[in-house]
C-alpha cells in the first residue's frame, strides 16, 4: 500500500483524534515499538547502549520535558541542566538513605522534587516574559549547580564531591552499578521513555495542552477566553521539570553511574536540550525525540566516519565535529526554522496529493 493520507476517511471524532491518523503510521509505530522491546535487547552490546541508545532514550525524556515548557507553553528555560541536577541528587539521596527502596521510585521522587523546584523558579513567569524569564532560569541553573557543589550534605560528605550510584535491581536484574547489563538498562530507560512520551502526548493534545498553547500564542486573549495564566504556566513548569528531573536522575543512576555536578549538569546541558527541541521542532513530541536522536547520533556518526573511515587523529576529528554540528544547526534553522517535525509534516502534505501537484 502506498503511504498516503488521501482516502483515509474518519467516521468518528475518536478516530479523528488519534495520535497516528494514518494507518501506515500506526502500523509502523507498533512494529517499531515491538522491535524495540523484543529484538533490540538480544543484539545490544555495551558500545551501542552507552554511546547511542541510553543517551537517546534519556535525552528524549528530557527534551519532551523542555518542549512542554518552551515549545507548548512558550516559556524559555535555560535552567534544564540545574533541574536535571535536582533530579539526580534527589535520586542519590533517596538511594543512599533508603537502600531497600525500588530504583524506579527513587527516580520518580527525583522527578517530583524537581517539579516543586521548577514551580518555584517558574513563579516569576507570571510577571516577566521572554528574555527576562530566560535570565531567571539561567540564574536557577547557576544557583543549583553552586548549591550542589557547596553543600556537602547533598553528596553525603564524600571526599571527591562526586556522587556515585550503588547497585540496585529490578525484577532480579541489576540496573545500576557495575553489574548492570546493557539489555537491562536499555529496557529500563525505554520503558520510562515510552510511558512518559505517552503521558506527554495525552497532556498536549487535550484541554491542558490547549491552555498551554493559548498562553504561548497570545496570553491576553487566552486569559479573556478563560485560561488562568498562573495555573497554566505553573502546571507547564511543574510537568516540564518533572520530565527533566526524571531524565537527570536516570543520567546519574543508570547511564553515568557517577557524576560531578559542574561537569554533568552544567550550562552546556541546558543548551544541548534547547538545541534538541529547536532542531526537532518546538511544540511536537515527535520533534523532541527526533531532535534528541539527531544531537546524540550526529557526533557518534561523524566521529565514526572521520576516525574510523578517514583515519584522522581523534583530536582533529573532535574539532571538526564541533564545526560540522554547528554548521548543521545553522543550516537546519535556515532551511526549516520549525524543525525536523515540520519537515515531516510538509512531506506528509505533499504525499497526500502525490503524484499530482494540485
Amino acid at each position: 500500500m502506498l503511504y498516503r493520507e488521501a482516502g483515509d476517511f474518519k467516521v468518528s471524532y475518536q478516530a479523528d483524534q488519534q495520535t497516528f491518523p494514518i494507518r501506515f503510521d500506526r502500523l509502523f509505530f507498533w512494529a517499531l515499538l515491538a522491535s524495540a522491546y523484543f529484538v533490540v535487547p538480544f543484539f545490544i552490546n555495551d558500545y551501542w547502549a552507552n554511546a547511542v541508545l541510553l543517551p537517546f532514550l534519556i535525552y528524549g525524556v528530557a527534551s519532551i520535558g523542555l518542549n512542554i515548557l518552551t515549545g507548548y507553553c512558550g516559556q524559555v528555560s535555560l535552567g534544564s541542566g540545574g533541574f536535571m541536577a535536582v533530579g539526580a541528587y534527589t535520586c542519590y539521596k533517596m538511594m543512599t538513605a533508603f537502600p531497600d527502596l525500588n530504583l524506579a521510585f527513587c527516580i520518580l521522587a527525583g522527578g517530583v522534587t524537581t517539579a516543586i523546584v521548577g514551580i518555584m523558579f517558574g513563579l516569576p513567569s507570571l510577571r516577566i516574559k521572554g528574555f527576562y524569564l530566560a535570565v531567571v532560569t539561567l540564574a536557577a541553573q547557576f544557583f543549583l549547580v553552586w548549591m550542589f557543589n557547596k553543600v556537602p550534605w547533598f553528596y553525603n560528605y564524600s571526599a571527591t564531591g562526586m556522587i556515585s550510584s550503588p547497585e540496585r535491581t529490578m525484577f532480579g536484574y541489576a540496573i545500576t552499578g557495575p553489574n548492570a547489563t546493557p539489555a537491562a538498562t536499555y529496557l529500563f530507560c525505554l520503558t520510562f521513555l515510552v510511558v512518559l512520551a505517552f503521558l506527554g502526548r495525552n497532556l498536549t493534545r487535550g484541554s491542558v495542552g490547549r491552555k498551554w498553547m493559548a498562553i504561548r500564542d497570545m496570553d491576553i486573549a487566552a486569559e479573556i477566553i478563560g485560561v488562568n495564566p498562573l495555573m497554566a504556566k505553573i502546571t507547564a513548569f511543574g510537568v516540564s521539570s518533572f520530565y527533566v528531573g526524571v531524565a537527570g536522575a536516570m543520567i546519574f543512576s543508570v547511564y553515568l553511574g557517577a557524576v560531578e555536578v559542574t561537569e554533568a549538569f552544567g550550562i552546556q546541558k541546558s543548551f544541548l536540550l534547547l538545541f534538541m527541541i529547536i532542531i526537532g521542532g518546538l511544540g511536537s513530541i515527535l520533534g523532541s525525540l527526533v531532535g534528541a536522536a539527531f544531537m546524540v547520533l550526529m557526533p557518534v556518526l561523524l566521529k565514526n566516519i572521520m576516525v574510523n573511515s578517514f583515519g584522522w587523529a581523534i583530536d582533529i576529528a573532535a574539532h571538526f565535529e564541533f564545526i560540522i554540528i554547528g554548521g548543521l544547526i545553522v543550516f537546519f534553522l535556515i532551511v526549516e526554522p520549525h524543525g525536523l517535525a515540520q519537515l515531516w509534516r510538509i512531506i506528509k502534505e505533499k504525499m497526500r496529493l502525490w503524484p499530482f501537484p494540485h
Partner: protein
Amino acid sequence: MTVSQDAAVQETITPDGRTIGGVLMEMRNITLRFGGVVAIEDISFDIRQGEIRAIIGPNGAGKSSMLNVINGFYHPQDGEVWYKGAIRGPMRPHQIAAQGIARTFQNIALFHGMSTLDNIMTGRLTHMKTGMLSQSVWFGRAQREETENRAFAERIIDFLEIQSIRKTPVGRLPYGLQKRVELGRALAAEPSLLLLDEPMAGMNVEEKEDMSRFILDVNDEFGTTIALIEHDMGVVMDLADRVVVMDYGRKIGDGSPEEVRNNKAVIDAYLGVSSD
C-alpha cells in the same frame, strides 16, 4: 442572587418578533482613568437579555475601554457593574469568562500556532473540567469529554460554514475567515453575553453581509445577548435594537436607532457643529 425586580415588567417584543427580556448587565456610573486621562466618565447603561446592543462613537471615544471594563480587563475607578442581577466584585478576566462573557477583538487575537478546530476547542475550555491526571491517561474521562466538546465545536463549525478549513493553521487563513474563526471561538464558550469589537472592520461588502447574517443568526438561534462596537452606521442601524453613543468618554445618546439618528448631540459629534 437577587434578580432585578422589574425583569418581568420590561419584557418586550421587537418589531421582527424576538423577545427581549430583563436586564442582563447594567453599568452604573462607570469612570475609568489612566493617570490623568479620563477614558470613560460617569457612564451608565444596561444590556437586556436577548438584545443586540451597539456602542458607537468617533475614534478614541472609549468604546473599546468599555468592553474591556465589561470583561474585566480594566477595573474602573468608580461605578458598579451589575451582571445577572448581582453586583460584580473585582475579578480576573478568566473568572469573568467562566461566568459566560466572551468576546472578539478589534485586531484579531487568534492563537496562530493552532488549527481552526483547536482555536474553537480553546473556546470550550471553560466547559472542560477533567484534571491533569485523567488528561494524561486520556482513555476514559478525558477522551469522553474531548469527544463531547468536539461535537459542540463541530456545530459551531457547521454554523459558520468553515468545515473546509477545520485543520488549517489559522495563520494561513485570509482576514475575513480569521474574523469568522474568532467569532467561532467566542461562540464555542456558549456565552450569555457576547462582546464583538468591530466585527466588520476591514471587510468588503460581501464579507460584511456574511458577518451581519452570522450575528443575527447567533442572536436568533442561540438567543445570545450581543454587545457590539461598529463604525459602519448602516450595519449598526440594521442590526442593533438599541444604541449607546459615546464621545470623549461620555455618553451622548442612548436609545433605538431611530432616536439616536435624530439626536442633536449625536449629529453634532459625528458631523461637527456649524460655526454660525
